[in-house]
């Protein structure tokens, strides 16, 4: 049996078909998304997205190379300190030998 809910309670589980949004239902009873509160994340668990089996999961490659251009939105000012410099390039070619050989480190 579902425990009594505090007054004004609204469900904050993620629901949706195309994109996640708050459920906002005032009770999980009879909810077709979480099935009476049995599913923690109905958005991720949605199984009727045709061929999109892992709709909410992205490969790590998705996050490489695209982060920077998206920073430059209208309300996020450009920050030149985020760019690589020649010194950074040299660091990448010659890794920190001391760190690599220091076996006392955790």
């Amino acid at each position, binding site marked *: 049996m579902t425990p009594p809910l505090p007054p004004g309670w609204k469900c904050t589980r993620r629901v949706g078909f195309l994109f996640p949004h708050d459920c906002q239902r005032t009770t999980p009873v009879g909810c077709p998304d979480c099935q009476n509160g049995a599913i923690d994340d109905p958005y991720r668990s949605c199984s009727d997205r045709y061929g999109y089996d892992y709709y909410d999961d992205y490969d790590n490659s998705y996050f490489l190379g*695209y982060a920077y251009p998206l920073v430059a939105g209208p309300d996020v000012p450009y920050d030149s300190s985020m760019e690589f410099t020649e010194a950074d390039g040299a660091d990448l070619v010659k890794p920190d030998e001391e760190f690599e050989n220091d076996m006392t480190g955790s």
Partner: protein
Amino acid sequence: MPVDQEQLRQTCVYESKAPIETTAAALDEIEGIAAGWHKTRSRLLFAGILTIACSLVGLALFPPVGIVMVALGVYLIYRRKYYPKGVANGLFRCEFTKALSAMLARDTDPQVAATVRLTFDPKRELLSEGVLPNRRNGKQQLYRASWFSVENRLLDGTSFTETIDDLVRERSFTNPRGKSKRKTRTRHLISMRFGYPGEVYGDLTPLAARIEKEIQLPRSALVRGLEVNDRAVKLKALVTESADLAQTSAMLALGVYRVLNLSRRLRDQTRKRFGKGGTQ
């Protein structure tokens, strides 16, 4: 609100500006009406043919009765026009609109009104006409018929628009035996537009190439155009099977949204990392 059957019969058009869930309920009703009209048309045709067949006997035995029966048979067949063929045979259009409405309802505020227009007997617009080579009396005509449009605002602030046009190719010629032949082929052109809010998703232009990779479609469908700018994603797809229209629409939207969701996640992640002001 119940569907006005008389208006539907006269215009063969269903139009609504109401919450998308209401539209789905109205379409259920239209589906019932269309199925009923389809049955009635079949029954009237059968009764008309049977009456005319019996009238032949009547004409031989008692001519006045035979004449009345012929008139009755012709009337029954003519009466079918009262139940428009477009609606009666347009069940797939109803099913498609219902499936799309159900999909959109999951990401739409139940209070927000969506504009839906569904035409069961769309007017054909002639696009081109020409000679069909290597065929006697060969002629080819290409038509466009627009039969569906929807405008809806989703919960994330995206304005979603979808239209469907039928592209019809009609070929007529005389075969070597001297018979006139007519062949018709129909393709469906789905056009979608997602006017996304920049403050939520940023600029999707750098991820434009990802969208085409992300879109998965059934075998009968093919992406024919994609345009991405800092405010909207527009895409077109060609579908050969009417039964795949709903699935294709859903898969196109899922493909676009997979990249929109990624863009939002990257934006949020970068903001968290560097702070809203852009400093670490």
